[in-house]
């Protein structure tokens, strides 16, 4: 950009800055709400299953079946129900099914009446696992737990019988998040999603506001080029959003104890590119929307769902169909999520994310160019 333009851009930047500072209430909201959000959601959004309520229906009542029931009860996650309504009576299958319907339990474990006999005769027997499938994710996890308990129980049986010696030795190591806390997954994700939405919202009103108050006419007739106006309206918010980002990151680091294993500088560099893409998106919306309300609504719909769904925030991208996978390449959060999780939790470095960084820059440029074009066209139409 030729240096002569810088003075003019500066004028817009200064004006826009005044606008930000003159509205302290909105500014506080921009800084406080993300913290409250991370605070509440950081604790609440979690996949970790702390407790599985299950009913065990032991129809065999043999020492073996009691040992099996005990194996479930001994697991710290399972809370086993086996008492019926009447005192001293065991829970019936019908009662257990009703409990399942009422969501009091997640699973019914049915040990068949002929367990011991069949095991002796054929060497194997099936255990019925009736799982509430309505929450797919939970159902899957419950089943995984069952399998693990059965596997251990089987190993014990085989070892005692001395038949197969030992089964295959499987050794699982979990890296970066040894306690498998889903907070490690969600909190950096929340940081990314919130940062994008804030950035986009900040700029989404900058032009639509002028349109609603009519002051856009002044911009139209100013000697500034459209490109300069768009850039001038974006720059001040970079500072606001970056500060906001630092704020959120510090909160995640010190409140939730999310480790920062990589370089803060690298993270901030990428955050800057990411914020730029959000601001660019906002300004494009702002040039297109007739009113502030429409601009806000559009910004939220455009940023919220794709950042939630098509970025890997909640659902892994690798599982998506090719079409959706292709769309995910246009979502800035896709790249930043990879970066932030990598840098924060794995200590990844700059060189790991050259592609992601490049894509963020490319996205920002495309969005800014589109906004400039749109603004320019409106300007020509107005004159």
């Amino acid at each position, binding site marked *: 950009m030729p240096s002569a333009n810088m003075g003019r851009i500066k004028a817009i930047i200064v004006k826009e800055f005044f606008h930000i500072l003159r509205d302290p209430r909105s500014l506080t909201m*921009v800084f406080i709400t993300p913290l409250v*959000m991370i605070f*509440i959601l950081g*604790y*609440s*959004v*979690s*996949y970790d299953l702390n407790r599985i309520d299950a009913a065990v229906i032991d129809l065999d009542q043999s020492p073996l079946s009691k040992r099996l029931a005990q194996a479930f009860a001994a697991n710290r996650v399972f809370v086993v129900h086996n008492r019926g309504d009447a005192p001293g009576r065991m829970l019936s299958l019908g009662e257990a099914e009703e409990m399942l*319907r009422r969501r009091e339990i997640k699973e019914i474990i049915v040990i068949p009446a002929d367990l011991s006999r069949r*095991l002796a005769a054929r*060497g*194997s*027997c*099936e*255990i019925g*696992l*009736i799982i*509430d499938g*309505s929450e*797919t994710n939970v159902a*899957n996890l419950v089943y*995984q737990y069952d*399998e693990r308990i*059965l*596997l251990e129980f*089987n190993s014990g*049986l085989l070892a005692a019988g001395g*038949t197969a010696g030992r089964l295959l*030795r499987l*050794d*699982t*190591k*979990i*890296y*970066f*998040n040894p306690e498998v806390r*889903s907070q490690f*997954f969600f909190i950096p994700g929340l940081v990314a999603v919130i940062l994008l*939405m804030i950035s986009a*919202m900040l700029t989404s*009103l900058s032009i639509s506001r002028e349109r609603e108050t009519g002051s856009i006419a002044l911009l139209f007739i100013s000697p500034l080029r459209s490109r300069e106006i768009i850039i001038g309206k974006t720059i001040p918010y970079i500072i606001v959003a970056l500060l906001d980002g630092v704020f959120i990151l510090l909160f995640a680091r010190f409140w939730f104890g999310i480790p920062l294993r990589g370089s803060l500088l690298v993270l901030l560099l990428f955050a800057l590119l990411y914020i730029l893409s959000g601001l660019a998106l906002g300004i494009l919306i702002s040039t*297109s929307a*007739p009113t*502030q*309300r*429409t601009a*806000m609504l559009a910004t939220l*719909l455009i940023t919220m*769902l794709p950042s939630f*769904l098509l970025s890997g925030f909640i*659902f*892994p991208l*690798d*599982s998506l*169909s090719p079409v*959706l996978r292709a769309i995910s390449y246009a979502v800035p959060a896709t790249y930043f999520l*990879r970066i932030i999780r*990598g840098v924060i939790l*794995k200590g990844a470095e700059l060189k*790991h994310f050259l592609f992601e960084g490049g894509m963020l820059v490319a996205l920002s440029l495309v969005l800014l160019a589109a906004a400039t074009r749109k603004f320019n066209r409106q300007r020509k139409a107005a004159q």
Partner: protein
Amino acid sequence: MKLFYLIKKELIEITRQKELLFLMFVSPVIQIVILGYVISTDIRHVPVGIVNLSQGQAAERIVERVRRSPLFDVRLESRHGMDYLYPLKKGEVKAMLVFRDALDRRRSLLKYPEVQVLMDGIDSNTSMIAAGYFNGIIKQYILDDMEKLGRGVPLAGRPVFRFNPQLRSINYMGPGIVGFLLTIITMFLTSASLVREKEQQTLDTLLISRLSTLEIYVGKALPSALIGLVDMVIGLLVVVLWFDIPFRGSLFYLFLAALVYLAAILAYSLLISVLSATTQQAMFFAWFSLMIFLLMSGFFTPVENIPPALRLVADVNPLRYLIKIIREIFLKGNGIAYFWKDLLALAAIAVTLVSISLLNFKRFISK
């Protein structure tokens, strides 16, 4: 009668904004379809790396099974030792599977190799599920192997999934989308409505008119409720027809719950509208509330996981109850006996919100 004109005016205003119409009626359909597809894709194609250092046949056979499985996507394979952590760090793979020959105490080769799984624990959910898949492959291999020798594993779990036999996650999430849509549209439409009148200077005329406070309040809420219901019907149709999710329960209770919910959410939105000074603030506040409502509703992650200290926030979240009721009705076809408590809680929240917001509204108007 006066109310009729107020509602008519609100509806005309909305229809005059093409962008708003698009956001209200077209974008929900797009959203549901995308959401539906994203959600219905269960975890598959988990990217893994395989390092096979074993000379035995068993390892090669297991690797072959992993390669063929649609659950895994083998991104790199090696027969030499390497920096196992590098691909994990880079995010290229979610897990590294390392096969080594296993020796017993007498240093003779065992039949089965030793398998090490190095997992990226960040996406704990995907990792756990992927580990489950891998365990399954190994278990099946051993089972097949034992069967050849005429033996079986002693106890095998045979799972039956109630209410959703194929564990289609869309069945679980889909109905929730309807509640989500109802919220997003009505909230954004309503929370800026008073501020807007203030900004375009029409509020005074409205206040000086012969409309009573209650009439203005209801007149602001009803058009949004109407649009919310239309959106809900659109959502239901897409969910049932496009995604083929069975609707097993009573439509009457579904709409009853939706109406109670609408009262709560509209009262809340009008409260935002009263408390905000500018459109920007109103929208910002609506966004904030929406994120909290949505992420604490059990829509994505179970409500049970919310820690006790924050349970209160979840307990007053109206969306939580609506989603619960919708799921009960949709998937299980349960009658009122199974969710009357939730409906009652929702009604209590609605009554409280309406009272608070009406009180604030009155104070706002008689400034």
